[in-house]
């Protein structure tokens, strides 16, 4: 299953005609940490030769555009027609259409059937090559190659890791609200290659990736026993996580992948437990008469954010990984839930309910510096892109038949619908596919 789509990737750095620029003398750079960034005009030319080359450059341009940081220039405006992607382009032709960066490339089939894809990124105003790489892979992996090229361009220009070569697990929803069918599904981050992971017989909720992307933990009502499960993506094998005397829900992996943290419901209250996947031992971390749920580890594994209504309404709390030092960090108007620790470690994303609206926001890990990114009738369940720059969440508008996925930049700009075939909720962004 997933393994089949993994592939050996050979990366060769292409030195371009003595024109490789060191970062110091590159003119093209994008500081993406200063609020609303003006998108960088970039020309992504059709990769030579033929249909596949064009499809790859289309995906590269679409990734860059969706990030909100790049403005791919309409190909109709191009003056120079690239015929030899190894040679330096006529920089003047690109400067005059204000292309600050230029991408050229070529896709060819090797004798053994593999695909060879190569690209060069040019700084048109400096007249230099910024980077150049080539990849060998199976032809069916052409979309991944395109995402990897887009990641390389993003990283070279912004100085931060890209997030295009990633996937999303989510709950695909169909049917009327009163008889909604739900299936776990997985897709590329741009909505391509969607695939169901479970049948629609059982209610399934809140899938989350393991750090190595090979497993998903989720909640299922299989056999009318609502419990946390583990799904091996490669084999489709499923197992219940732990043998708890009640409903288990809201699972998430520890950053080392060795534990699943979740809530156990017993009578009226929910407490947070971990289960070690190797020793099968369970550890109780909270012990209140309240609803303690939605736990999320800090990326170093030392702390856990969670939500609790122990003080009345739901608020965000932080504790040590052993349950020590539990303290409330959210103090704004309304209630706060679904805390998710940023992969960078510096922020916690959340769902906020206030004044009849549902918002997605972020705060520092001590609760200060709250920023609301989007507000509306119902926004819920943020998940971070692995570079910590973009969040995905689900939204249901008033009067809508069901929820849909959206992404938004950490700055609160560039909100984008994520295409899915039907209704979708509970997105979880994969770690980077190394």
């Amino acid at each position, binding site marked *: 299953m997933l393994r089949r789509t993994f592939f050996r990737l050979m990366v060769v750095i292409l030195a371009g005609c003595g024109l490789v620029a060191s970062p110091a003398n590159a003119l093209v750079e994008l500081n993406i940490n200063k609020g609303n960034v003006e998108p960088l005009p970039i020309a992504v030319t059709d990769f030579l030769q033929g249909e596949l080359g064009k499809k790859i450059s289309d995906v590269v341009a679409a990734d860059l555009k969706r990030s909100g940081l790049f403005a791919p220039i309409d190909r109709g405006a191009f003056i120079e027609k690239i015929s030899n992607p190894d040679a330096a382009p006529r920089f003047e032709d690109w400067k005059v259409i204000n292309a600050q960066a230029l991408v050229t490339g070529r896709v060819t089939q090797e004798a053994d059937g593999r695909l060879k894809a190569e690209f060069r990124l040019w700084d048109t105003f400096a007249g230099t090559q910024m980077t150049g790489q080539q990849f060998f892979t199976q032809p069916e992996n052409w979309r991944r190659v395109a995402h990897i090229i887009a990641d390389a361009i993003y990283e070279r220009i912004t100085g931060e890791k890209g997030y295009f070569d990633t996937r999303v697990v989510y709950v695909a929803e169909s049917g009327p609200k*009163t008889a909604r069918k739900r299936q776990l599904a997985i897709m590329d981050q741009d909505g391509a290659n969607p695939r169901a992971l479970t049948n629609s017989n059982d209610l399934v909720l809140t899938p989350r990736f393991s750090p190595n992307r090979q497993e998903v933990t989720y909640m299922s009502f299989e056999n009318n026993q609502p419990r946390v499960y583990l799904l091996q993506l490669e084999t489709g094998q499923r197992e219940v996580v732990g043998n708890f005397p009640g409903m288990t829900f809201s699972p998430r992996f520890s950053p080392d992948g060795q534990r699943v943290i979740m809530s156990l419901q017993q009578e009226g209250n929910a407490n947070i437990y971990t289960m070690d996947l190797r020793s099968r031992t369970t550890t109780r971390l909270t012990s209140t008469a309240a*609803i303690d749920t939605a736990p999320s580890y800090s990326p170093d594994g030392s702390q856990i954010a969670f*939500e609790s209504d122990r003080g009345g309404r739901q608020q965000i709390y932080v504790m040590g990984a052993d349950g020590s030092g539990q303290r409330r960090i959210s103090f704004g108007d309304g209630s706060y*839930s679904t805390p998710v620790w940023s992969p960078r470690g510096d922020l916690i994303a959340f769902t906020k309910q206030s004044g009849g609206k549902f918002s997605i926001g972020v705060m520092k890990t001590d609760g200060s510096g709250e920023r609301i990114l989007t507000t509306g009738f119902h926004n819920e369940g943020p998940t971070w892109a692995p570079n910590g720059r973009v969040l995905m969440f689900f939204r*249901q508008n008033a009067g809508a038949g069901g929820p849909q996925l959206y992404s938004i930049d950490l700055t609160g700009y560039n909100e984008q619908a994520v295409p899915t075939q039907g209704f979708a909720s509970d997105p979880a962004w994969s770690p980077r596919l190394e």
Partner: protein
Amino acid sequence: MSRIDTPAAGRMQTIARNPVMIALVMTLAIAGCASKKNLPNNANELGLGGAGSATPGSQQDFTVNVGDRIFFDTDSTSIRADAQQTLDRQAQWLAKYPNYAVTVEGHADERGTREYNLALGARRAASTKDYLISRGVPANRLKTISYGKEKPVAVCDDISCWSQNRRAVTVLGGAGM
């Protein structure tokens, strides 16, 4: 209050054989009265359950003549006075028909986050179960399950629906934990 005409007994029996149909009729009936305070919460008050419309001791009898569900205030798990009356009738019925085990299904409205609502539904099921135990139903006949906000019965974007979805439903048999 808007009155629902009592169907002819023969027709009622046809409907009564189909619990889905009953639930649908009840939902429509309740929705029709949503603007009133003290929502009727069982078919008896709506004039749906005439004598002889369901076999005594049957699922239909329980649903129609006793009332299988109670409603909660926002974020609340306390049993309201109107709900106590329903649960009292449930306890009496269960005492009369001791062969039934039941599952209490707890539900939340959609104005909350998924994880919290799963726990809130469980809390409502637990408080309902506790009340039934206090009225003499043996604990070993009672199971609970929570569906959170995932199984609404009323679909609209205002309180007239949300108030119907914040509920605990007592199901004969059922499959809780």
